[in-house]
């Protein structure tokens, strides 16, 4: 079964545990600037929104890459960077409509979410289940259930 990251911003407290888990998995250091997932605080609205790569099927980044350094992991569905091939041209960062592929100046390569090979650290680190890893075919399940509860006929 393919799985997807599911984000519920209403549950996010903005603590950045996910960013640290991500940077540690990717770079071996606690460092939000090296995280593939970002939390965006909207101060006046009073909400924190986690945002990361949604692993598009027809991924713009993958198609744009001139050296085929972005490849599909058939098990997880993730589009992964092959560091040995990446030349750091950054075309993928332009191609991605969502901004979730970014350049890492320290390594000269790009970084993006790779679902940690199928066991995403951000979801495990999130203390409020704002980020979960669920059946890719049913990412709307919880929301549907909430609305189903509202539509439930009165007894």
């Amino acid at each position, binding site marked *: 079964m393919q799985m997807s990251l599911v984000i519920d911003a209403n549950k996010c*407290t903005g603590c950045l545990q996910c960013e640290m888990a991500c940077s540690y998995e990717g770079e071996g*250091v606690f460092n939000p600037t090296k995280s593939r997932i970002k939390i965006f605080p909207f101060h*006046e*609205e*009073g*909400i924190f929104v986690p945002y990361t790569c949604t692993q598009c099927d027809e991924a713009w980044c993958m198609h744009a890459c001139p050296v085929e350094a972005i490849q599909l992991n058939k098990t997880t569905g993730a589009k992964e960077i092959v560091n040995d091939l990446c030349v750091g041209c950054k075309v993928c960062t332009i191609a991605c409509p969502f901004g979730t592929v970014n350049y890492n100046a320290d390594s000269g390569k790009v970084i993006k979410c790779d679902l940690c090979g199928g066991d995403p650290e951000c979801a495990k680190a999130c*203390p409020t289940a704002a980020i979960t890893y669920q059946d890719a075919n049913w990412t709307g399940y919880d929301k549907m259930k909430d609305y189903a509860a509202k539509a439930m006929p009165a007894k």
Partner: protein
Amino acid sequence: MSWTKKVLRINLTEGTCTPEPLNMDWVEQFLGQRGLATKYLSEEVPPTTDPLSPENTMYMVTGPLTGTMASTAGRYSVVTKSPLTNAVACSNSGGFFGNEMKCAGWDMIILEGKSPTPVYISINDDKADILPADEIWGKSVWEADEWLHAKHQDPQLRIAAIGVAGEKGVLYSAIINDLHRAAGRSGVGTVMGSKNVKAVAIRGSKGVQVNDPKAFFEASNAAKAVLAGNPVTGEGLPALGTQVLMNVINEMGAQPTRNYKESVFAGASKISGEAMLEPRKSDGKPNLTRNAGCFACTIACGRISTIDPQHFSIQNKDDLHKHYHGNSGGLEYEAAWALGSDTCIDDIDALTYANFVCNEQGLDPISLGSTIAAAMELFEIGVLTTENTGGIDLSFGNVEAMIKCTELVAKGEGFGLELGQGSARLCEKYGHPELSMTVRGQEFPAYDPRGIQGMGLGYATSNRGACHLRGYTVASEVLGIPIKTDPLETEGKAGLQIAFQNATAVFDSVGICVFTSFAWSLEDVAPQVNAACEGEWTVERLDELGERVWNLERLYNEAAGQGASADKLPPRMVSEPATSGPAEGKVNGLSTMLPEYYAERGWSPEGELTNETKTRLGL
């Protein structure tokens, strides 16, 4: 590992930024943050130094866990000599500033001397600059924050700043980071202002590492599970914030009311955490929008709130003050009691507004509220009149007066300048020093020591002046953590207070939030520190370290004239019995507890450190 082992020393007089190695010998003895910076202070700033002179030095300091994935590990402290108390000051803040300092590669930033003109400090990893702040001098924290983000074109810049109050010498000015997190007490913002420093803006990209990652994840994950499973840190604090306490403390008769004259407040339920969840008439929304976490915090007690759009306090706020019409850092229990029950005000929107003002202009709401309450009592007995207040009717319960006073103090204008000196100086000036609810010149926090006896001893002996965060025996006396003790009894409170004081000094030296101590003991902290740091950090070693930190602070205070002679409570607490509630008829038994405390501390009967104790602790 864990420490960056680098200190940034900024000499404002000379205009220099110089990196230097962290003194690792002192780290062995004092670990980090509160303990370590107090060691630097005691070695570099003579205890008799005038706190507002260039000879005072200010330390912004992280702990070894700051910036790691340990829960709540984003803390930093500001240590300096306090202008409010003339004793050691140490104020601790969350938000996202401490971790950014660490990510930029600095364990500590030292601000010494005084800049000839207003400046701010810009730090981007190794690069540090002292830059002109003329354009933001005279502006609020929020305006400075916006200006700095725009100027550096960096939305991810982390900023700690002072408001106008700090520039104007209000003695309980705070340093605010991330718009509404505060290094709040003892006037650390006033010291920053006295150095002509408006803000410190940091961006770090280096990250933080730990010594033994496997052991660290094991320990920090286990400790997170302890927090999640604890009723206080796992349920009460995320749901209601510190405001979970308002109704609890009121019901037990320890809710400071009417400048501590009374200890039960009839309007408590209207300004409680529960009240913050009630939808209001105007727009159907509750005061509380949601809870929020500081960096790495898995508790998330922070309040994000709005003011009722129809409340009179914000009707004249224009686009410049847009934050007042949206969400910002909401009421904590300490702000709610001081601005609320102590002044007999039960208008939750007025309190939220005053709290926003404290954040915007960098004020400690505890000292502010207490000082206004003391002024109200001076007004009540007729020694302070509208002639002194600039026409403000300072009757208890007058909402408009509380708001007006808050605005005046925030901007250091008119009668606000007098209130800005704190309640000890105000009451002294008007001939009634006994009406100031302070120890070492710092205003009491939210627990009436007639109803919670151990807290009286805690206030009297607190090294930074009256404070709840130095030895929170409320945990034991009210909540039963780790064991339930009778709040109305004095027996055993000396030992209890010492245990809390020592343990808290450890938590404050690690880089974590003291709220974890509702669930964690040193048994939970030590494995995390031990895994993150080089060397061996056992429970026993940390326990002794906490005692060492406490005694070092005390030694500094003794030499500053704030030792045993200042270990006392206002007469109201020890001779005016509580008038209602469970503590009715009680006074605080300080005179019973204090000699026991001195003996158990290993101090002389006069309350001075003995040579034996100094030698034992390596001081």
